C-alpha cells in the first residue's frame, strides 16, 4: 500500500507522532523463542525493571485476544483445526490485539512487551508445512518491533524443560502434523522443526539472540544492556502503513 502524501494523511500523522523528539515514543519489544526457553520468566523480570525505570508498560501474550481466543480454544479442544485454519485464526487473534491493545498503547507513548509476536506464527506455521510468503502476508501491514529478543535453546533443552514438568497438549506437540501418538515423542520432533524455522527468522529479521541456556540473572542483565542500546534506535518507517491503516479506521475511514 502506498502511503498518501497529504500532510494531514494518517501516514503523515503517524510519522509526526512517532518521530516527535519532544515526547517519549511508544516502544514495542517482542520476546520470542520456543517453549521452555524461559522467555516468560525473563519477560516478567524485564517488565518489573522497565516500570522501575519509569516506563508505562503494557503486556500482550500470544493467542490472548478476548474476541478470538474462545474461537481457537474450542476448536483446539476438538482437535479439528487444519494447519491453514490454525494459521488464519492465530493471525486473526494477532490482528485484533494489534488493533485493540498494541497500537493504542504505542500511540499514547506506552511501552508494549509482547510475549510472542508474529514470528511465533511464522515459525509454527512453516513448521506445519505452510508457505512462509503466504503466512507473512496474513500479518500485513506488518508492525515491526523496536527490538526482538530471541531466546535460543536447543531442541533437547526445550524438550527436557517442557516434558519433565507436564505433557504437551495436542497442537503444542504438533501431533496434528507429525502423526505420532505419543505427545512427548511428537513434541521432540516438532520443536526441532520450529527451532529450525526460528533460527532462519532470526537471521532474516535481525533478532537479538539471547543464549537461554545461561543463568536467569545473566540473561536479565544482558536484556537490560541490550534494551538501553536498542531504545535509541529511530522509529522504523516500515511501520507507517500499519499505523496509518489503524488511524484511518479509528477516524471513520475504510479498512
Amino acid at each position: 500500500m502506498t502511503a498518501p502524501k497529504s500532510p494531514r494523511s494518517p501516514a503523515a500523522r503517524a510519522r509526526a507522532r512517532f518521530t516527535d523528539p519532544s515526547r517519549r515514543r511508544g516502544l514495542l519489544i517482542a520476546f520470542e523463542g520456543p517453549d521452555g526457553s524461559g522467555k516468560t520468566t525473563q519477560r516478567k523480570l524485564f517488565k518489573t525493571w522497565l516500570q522501575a525505570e519509569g516506563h508505562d508498560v503494557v503486556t500482550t501474550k500470544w493467542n490472548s485476544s478476548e474476541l478470538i481466543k474462545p474461537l481457537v480454544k474450542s476448536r483446539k479442544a476438538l482437535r479439528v483445526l487444519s494447519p491453514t485454519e490454525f494459521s488464519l485464526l492465530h493471525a486473526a487473534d494477532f490482528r485484533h490485539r494489534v488493533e485493540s491493545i498494541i497500537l493504542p498503547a504505542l500511540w499514547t507513548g506506552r511501552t508494549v512487551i509482547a510475549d510472542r509476536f508474529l514470528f511465533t506464527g511464522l515459525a509454527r506455521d512453516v513448521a506445519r508445512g505452510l508457505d512462509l510468503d503466504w503466512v507473512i502476508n496474513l500479518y500485513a501491514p506488518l508492525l515491526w518491533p523496536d527490538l526482538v529478543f530471541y531466546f535460543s535453546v536447543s531442541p533437547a533443552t526445550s524438550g527436557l524443560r517442557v516434558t519433565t514438568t507436564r505433557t504437551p497438549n495436542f497442537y503444542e506437540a504438533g501431533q496434528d502434523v507429525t502423526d505420532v501418538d505419543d505427545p512427548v515423542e511428537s513434541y521432540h520432533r516438532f520443536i526441532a522443526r520450529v527451532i529450525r524455522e526460528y533460527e532462519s527468522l532470526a537471521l532474516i529479521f535481525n533478532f537479538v539472540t539471547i543464549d537461554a541456556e545461561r543463568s536467569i540473572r545473566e540473561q536479565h542483565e544482558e536484556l537490560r544492556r541490550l534494551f538501553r542500546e536498542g531504545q535509541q534506535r529511530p522509529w522504523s518507517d516500515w511501520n507507517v502503513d500499519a499505523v496509518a491503516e489503524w488511524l484511518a479506521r479509528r477516524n471513520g475511514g475504510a479498512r
Partner: protein
Amino acid sequence: MSRRPRLIAVDGANGRALLAAAERMAVVKGVEKSVSRWDASGLFEQLVMAGDDISTTSSRLLLLLYAADLAFRLRWEIEPALAEGHTVVAAPYVDTAMAFGRACGLPAKWLNNLFRFARKPSERHVIGTAPASRPRETAGFIEFGCVHLEWIDGRELAARTRKQLGTGRASHLGRRLRAR
C-alpha cells in the same frame, strides 16, 4: 459417476438472494450434494453468541475469519464431495470476500494472497441483487460486516461491494437467476 465433479462458485452482496439463487442453481445443475454456505464452521455465530463488542474490529480481521471459515468448508464440505465425484455449489465463495475487501479499501495483493489456498472454481456466477436495506447479521457475510463494522456506513459498504462484484463479471446464468 458419468460427469466430472465441478465446483460452482456463486457470489453476491445479498446473502438471502445469494442462497436462494444457489439452491436454484443446484437444481439446474443437478447437484447431488447440498450447497456449501457461509459460516459452516460456526465462527461468526460463536462471535455473536459470545456477545462481545465486535463493532471496533477491522475488515482485515473479518476477512481472516472468513478465510478460516472457507478453509473449513473446503476441508469438510467441498473437497470430500468433489473427491466422491459430486458437483458442489459454494455460495458464497472467494469473489464475495474479495469484493468486500476491495470495497473496504484493502489492497488486492493482500486479498489475492489470503485466498491462495482456495481451489479455482469450474464456474463463477455473480448474483446482482441489491443489498438488503435492513441487513440482518445472520443473512450473510456482507450483512455481518455491514452490521458490525460501525466505523463505516453499512449501506455504502454493501453498495460498494456490489459494485466491486458487478464490474462486468455477472455471468449469463447469474443474470438469469437474478431475473427470476
